């Protein structure tokens, strides 16, 4: 049973460009969340997708957008990249039926470097 997978593993972009990161959830999971982890910090919640819609959103600008496909996989898009967007981007999946305090399963992350 494959866990959460993310692609690519590493990415280097130039300031002002756009980037798309991809995530496939763990088998049986229908909810995908994205997190940004800056160097030396804990992950910060970007948004969560369920039933192909953004269900919750953290304190991130509109430059960060996402999508969920019918097979539950998800994309994170970041427009007009800034140097401060350099971080490890983590995808996590969970089951909507998991109940309170749902646990999330994390992928290995995509390391984005903006130069």
């Amino acid at each position, binding site marked *: 049973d494959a866990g*959460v997978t993310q692609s690519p593993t590493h990415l280097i972009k130039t300031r002002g460009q756009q980037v798309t990161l991809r995530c496939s959830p763990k088998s049986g999971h229908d909810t995908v969340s994205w997190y940004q982890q800056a160097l030396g910090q*804990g*992950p910060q919640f970007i948004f969560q997708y369920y039933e192909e819609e953004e269900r919750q959103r953290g304190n991130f600008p509109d430059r960060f957008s996402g999508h969920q496909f019918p097979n539950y996989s998800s994309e994170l898009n970041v427009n007009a990249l800034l140097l401060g967007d350099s971080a490890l981007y983590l995808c996590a999946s969970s089951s909507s039926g998991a109940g309170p*305090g749902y646990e*999330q399963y994390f992928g290995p992350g995509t390391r984005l470097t903006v130069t």
Partner: protein
Amino acid sequence: AQSVTQLDSHVSVSEGTPVLLRCNYSSSYSPSLFWYVQHPNKGLQLLLKYTSAATLVKGINGFEAEFKKSETSFHLTKPSAHMSDAAEYFCVVSDLNDMRFGAGTRLTVKP
């Protein structure tokens, strides 16, 4: 609003000695609490979780944590550290709508 404070940014222990990683939380509701571990260049792995059942929670790899509502704490412990325990540890507080991570505690294990 909920928040998490990990009281130590770095903890160093000798192999075979006890581990204590401290976490305090703030939440308006009865929270769910988690500890995750992150090894270098790896994703986050769930160590254990508390969801209003037993206050002493046992996790993987010999770790356990005790939920103390009066102290709003959820400290992580292990009786005997192993070299493979060296990693970054995150305490997390969650309700249905939000998941907040602490800043992390880096655990170093000396031979």
